[in-house]
């Protein structure tokens, strides 16, 4: 049994072990992917490509970071895609139709995320529902809610240049003609903060512990439902942030939309080494995994792959990522 756990020279290298084999592989794949697109498409080799990759990275990274916490507890949050649209619609509705100050719109957007996250968390931890089912139901609810509040109309957050358009500069700032992806800074800062939260604080530690062995965690005197709920609250909070990122990077949100985006985020997290079985996962891995998703999303249209093929490719990527995770867990057991 012990022999099986010892890897080869490569996997036992202290640096490799500190970073994690999977992350190194992901970085290599990422580089390969970027090189591939660079070779196949001239337009990929421009600075502006970074900007558009970043546009996809912001919201996916936020969603991914949030859902990583749910995955680490051994659960999942399917409501994030639809939820993101729903919260952005509610916030935007307040700003556009009710003429609320932008800051109120932002706060309400995040608050909606927090509330929905709390509901998810309570249903899962106290109600004992299977996470995927509970969040599927809240996904349906979020879907309806966004449409009802806006009366079915799509919403555009204040555009750049308009008096309230400053939200857009939060993520992309114009510095003398060159646009800088300022949002990446926020993603990085939050990634660092959440990494510290996950690895260096008690709640983070307990979230990992719950995913690793719920019963042992309970026996260690830890209030499992509280920390399990917390994971979903974090997911909800980040969904709120993602809603801001999405609405400032893109123009309009359609009510009832957003379904399917959660798969990109969950896929990113799994590619980054977060296990569907819980207990293990890193924020850095998720960010890397999300990059693979966003590079694919930005790159595939550039090499003239039509949209319908993109869906198939992402579906296959997802299955492969999950299968690798299953194999990994089998090896550990």
């Amino acid at each position, binding site marked *: 049994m012990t022999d099986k756990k010892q890897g080869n020279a490569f996997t036992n290298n202290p640096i490799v072990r500190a970073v994690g084999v999977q992350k190194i592989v992901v970085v290599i794949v990422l580089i390969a992917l970027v090189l591939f697109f660079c070779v196949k498409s001239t337009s990929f080799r421009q600075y502006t490509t970074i900007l558009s990759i970043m546009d996809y990275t912001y919201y996916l990274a936020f969603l991914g970071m949030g859902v990583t916490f749910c995955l680490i507890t051994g659960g*999942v949050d399917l409501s994030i895609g639809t939820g993101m649209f729903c919260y952005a619609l509610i916030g935007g509705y307040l700003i556009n139709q009710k003429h609320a100050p932008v800051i109120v719109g932002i706060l309400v957007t995040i608050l909606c995320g927090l509330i929905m996250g709390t509901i998810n968390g309570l*249903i899962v931890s106290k*109600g*004992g*529902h*299977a996470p*995927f*089912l*509970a969040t*599927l*139901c*809240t*996904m*349906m*609810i979020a*879907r*309806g*809610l966004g*449409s*009802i509040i806006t*009366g*079915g109309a799509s919403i555009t957050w204040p555009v750049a240049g308009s008096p309230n358009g400053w939200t857009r500069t939060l993520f992309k700032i114009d510095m003398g003609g060159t646009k800088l992806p300022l949002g990446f800074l926020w993603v990085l800062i939050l990634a660092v903060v959440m990494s510290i939260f996950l690895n260096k604080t008690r709640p983070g530690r307990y979230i990992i512990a719950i995913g690793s062995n719920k019963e042992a965690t309970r026996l260690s005197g830890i209030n499992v439902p509280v920390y399990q709920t917390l994971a979903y609250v974090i997911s909800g909070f980040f969904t709120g942030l993602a809603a801001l990122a999405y609405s400032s990077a893109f123009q309009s949100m359609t*009510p*009832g939309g957003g*379904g*399917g985006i959660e*798969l990109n985020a*969950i896929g990113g997290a799994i590619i980054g080494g977060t296990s*569907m079985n819980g207990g293990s996962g890193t924020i850095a891995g998720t960010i890397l995994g999300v990059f693979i998703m966003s590079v694919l999303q930005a790159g595939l249209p550039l090499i003239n792959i*039509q*949209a*319908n*093929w*993109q*869906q*198939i490719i*992402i*579906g*296959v990527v*997802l*299955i492969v990522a*999950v*299968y690798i995770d*299953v194999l990994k867990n*089998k090896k550990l057991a």
Partner: protein
Amino acid sequence: MEKIKQNAIVKKIGFNSLVLLCVMILLYIMFAVLTPMIKTNASFVSYARLVSALKYAYFLGFLSLGVTFVIATGGIDFSIGPVMFCAALISGYQLTSRGWPLAVCILICILVGTAFGLFNGVLVSYAGLPSFITSMASMMLAKGLGSVFTKTQPVSWPQSEEPGGWYRNLVGIKAGGMEIPTGLILLIIGAIICAIILNKTMAGRYILCIGSNREAVRLSGVNTKKWETLAYVICGTLAGMAALFYVGKNTTVLPGLGDTMNNEAIAGCVMGGTSMTGGVASIGGTLIGVLIIALLQEGIMAMGFQIHYQYIITGLIVLVVVWADLRSRRRRN
């Protein structure tokens, strides 16, 4: 209460189904009363409304019947809606653009569903992937394949008077101003066959037992992987059949859609008393659950509301029903 439950007739039909039946009737009465109150000049009670609610129930019913088998094994299938669309697109494309005979196309339609079922089943039972993420990935594959196959064009199945329009008789036959709901008859026949498969055949027996205690079944020398795969195959095949009723009602199918159908089909199944943890399934319950959902939709529309309310209501109902199921289960243990 106990007395009612012990009654022979009640036992035969199943207490749960009876309760559901009452709920359905209550709902009908509620809509009949509320509709004129909320919307002036509107009424709910008419043969036409009943038929239109039923038409919605046909394809949803077949989807629900199929997913009942998968849920009975303790799994889930989120790909049924897109698979139904994909099947309708591929076979419809052959029918209209290539001029293949109707009978062949109907067969293709069903086989496409079967193929997706097999794909899901093999990944879940043989490769050991979690069913919800597998089926979500194949949902993307189904959407993508449907678009690729039809070159993203919508496919309009023939009108009733056109050649190859015979399939419409599956849904209803016009006879002297009245419409005979053949779909209802077929749905009931389908449900009876499903009930027989589930309760009277080896497949159904093992599917239910796998959902209840997979390991005990395996240790009885039963090929659990085979039977589990079969559940997904049945589910896919029924999704293929559902496609016929979908086009029979709606004529035109668009590529890249169908995920909203999943939630409602699963909701119908769960409402009917099929337990999400597996092992317990009721075909009769599923049938009534689907009818309730169809009624709900018709009622919401009759009162002049947008469709969004249905999402919220369905989500809430599923949560409550699953919660009740968990509660009663916990109490028993």
